[in-house]
């Protein structure tokens, strides 16, 4: 179980004569991902979802808040002591082309973390080779053919599988997949997604999926929570299918409305929401972060910031003063 409470992260850009500029990447985010469970972060680029994923994987520090891994609060430990905890959380990056060292064979790539593992547990060299073959089989690759190959001899889909295999060498509890299929060919994407789903079921690893593609998030973790993040704040959170079918925050509605409609198979949603302006045209300190782009803003939205909470009659948490269900996603023609 991994939880976060009030995670805050501010990036300070190098100053110029007008002073340093601060970018508030995360403004107090809470999350919780149960063992073997799933969660998805969605939002536009720049919303902070990748930063949050990196913090959870221990690749980035945070300024405030607390991350608790299996009951151990990370702030109580020194950086060095945190390492074994964060090792349970492995990151799958977006680009399998740059995530693998081009001068190492698959075998060499897997051997480095396995050597560490063998040293820790006092296992033999033979165990390392056995385990390397095992993790490759787990991700659907044939060890005999890929072990000796270099990354350039593999397709994008195979490389991403090697990256996942490498993550599995340390017996992780959670995989953080950051846009893990967006650079994979369309016909191979589902294979990688199905693999992540399968690893959840077979090994009990939890998966945190970070994406702007809501449908792939649903595919991996329809039993988990969907977190909609806007400018560093979670604006809506609830079970995946609830948020997709009955979103109440206008930003979630805008995101879902923007998903292309497969005309011929689907009919457009009934109440699409189009945001008023582009991102970053925004107030920072007071009022709702989404208000400048919100077609439904009221007076209160300019003066007070809504916090993520449960309100009467809405099953999911949201951060909006005027939550209203709207049917925005495309409907399959077969069901109309």
């Amino acid at each position, binding site marked *: 179980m991994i939880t976060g409470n009030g995670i805050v992260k501010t990036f300070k850009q190098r100053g110029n004569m007008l002073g340093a500029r601060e970018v508030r990447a995360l403004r107090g985010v809470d999350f919780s991902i149960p063992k073997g469970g799933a969660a998805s972060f969605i939002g*536009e*680029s720049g919303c902070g979802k990748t930063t949050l994923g990196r913090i959870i994987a221990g690749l980035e520090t945070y300024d405030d808040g607390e991350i608790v891994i299996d009951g151990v609060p990370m702030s109580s430990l020194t950086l060095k002591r945190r390492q074994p905890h964060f090792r349970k959380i492995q990151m799958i990056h977006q680009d399998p082309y740059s995530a693998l060292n081009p001068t190492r064979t698959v075998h060499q790539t897997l051997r480095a973390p396995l050597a560490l593992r063998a040293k820790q547990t006092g296992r033999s060299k033979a165990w390392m080779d056995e385990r390397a073959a095992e993790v490759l089989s787990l991700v659907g690759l044939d060890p005999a053919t890929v072990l000796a190959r270099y990354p350039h001899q593999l*397709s*994008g*889909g*195979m490389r991403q599988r090697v990256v996942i295999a490498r993550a599995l060498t340390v017996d992780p509890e959670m995989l953080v997949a950051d846009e893990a299929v967006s650079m994979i*060919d*369309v*016909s*191979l*994407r*589902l*294979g990688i*997604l*199905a693999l992540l789903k399968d690893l959840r079921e077979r090994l009990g690893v939890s998966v945190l999926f970070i994406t*702007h*593609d*809501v*449908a*792939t998030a*649903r*595919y991996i973790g*329809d039993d988990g929570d969907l977190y909609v993040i806007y400018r560093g704040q979670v604006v809506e959170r609830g079970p995946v299918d609830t948020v*997709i*079918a009955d979103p109440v925050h206008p930003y979630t509605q*805008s*995101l*879902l*409305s*923007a*998903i*292309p*409609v*497969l*005309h*011929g*198979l689907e009919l457009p949603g009934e109440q699409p929401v*189009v*945001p008023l302006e*582009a*991102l*970053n045209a925004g107030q920072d300190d007071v009022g709702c972060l989404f208000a400048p782009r919100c077609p439904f803003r009221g007076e209160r939205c300019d003066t007070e910031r809504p916090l993520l909470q449960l309100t009467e009659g809405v099953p999911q948490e949201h951060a909006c003063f005027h939550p209203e269900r709207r049917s925005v*996603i*495309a*409907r*399959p*023609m077969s*069901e109309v």
Partner: protein
Amino acid sequence: MAQATTGQAPGVRVDGLTVVYKTPAGELPAVRDVSLTLEPGSITGIVGESGSGKSTLALSLLNAVQPPGRISAGSVEIDGLGDVVGFEGERLRKARGAHIGYVFQAAQNSLNPLKTVGKQLLDLGRSHGVEDRRGLLREAQELLGRMGLDGARVLDSYQHELSGGMRQRVGIMLALVLNAQVVVLDEPTTALDMITQANILKIVREVHAERGLTTLVITHDIGVVAEVADRLAVMYGGRLVEQGPTRQVLGDPRHPYTKGLIKAIPRLVGDIDQARALPGRPPTLATVPKAGCVFRERCALRMDICDTDDPAAVAHGPRIVACHAVKVKEHA
């Protein structure tokens, strides 16, 4: 000059086009015997995975395939211009930009980081002998304004001062500012997030209609084509395997590859397990079979004839399908 076509969108006819790349294993075809008609005033979408030859096909419209590649057979006939495959030198350079606008893949990176957008625009004008520089700037400002940007500000900006969506719009402006009537957009929304993508697609549709263009959109994302295109063409291993009106192809795909591709898209509603992965993987230039159907390795309907004979593209009404299995079904 070819001014006769002004006001009316030109049609484009690609016929029997083959583009080969020189490799250590000899010349290998990236695009093989492709025929495709872009009806005047239509938006056509080409969908394909990496290595399917879709970008090579798009570059052929400009006769811009770079060595070690070359167009080895076929023609690209553009109304009011002629067969661009035969063009070279100055004549070709003038056709590009003035007749055919091209919005490059990752427009994010196709701008010069050292020059403002306005300077690059003037460079473009100079290289095409535009004398009315004020007119050119005015036109560019209007186009940018049309796409929801502050034209004057954007022209004064360097690329790093613009967001991804803004740069993509600058790319579209540069493709249209010389009044090109045929526009090719290569992966216009890749690397943009959902809301920006929806905005860009809306702009593509609107500008297309307002200026009476003939538009070709190249993408790996069926959703993008579904949103903008009248006609959809599916490419695989250098071949066009299926074409037809977008809604018909999506609603009732005929070619096994198209079927598999549509089935492999996870959906927002309904049973998750309906989505099925396509087995195998797409061929590369080196692994495309020399004879027979390019898709047979991954095909559930594979027959003996698929190993030896490349299926011809056969028209069934407005639909064109290149598959032995589909033909058999139609005749039976």
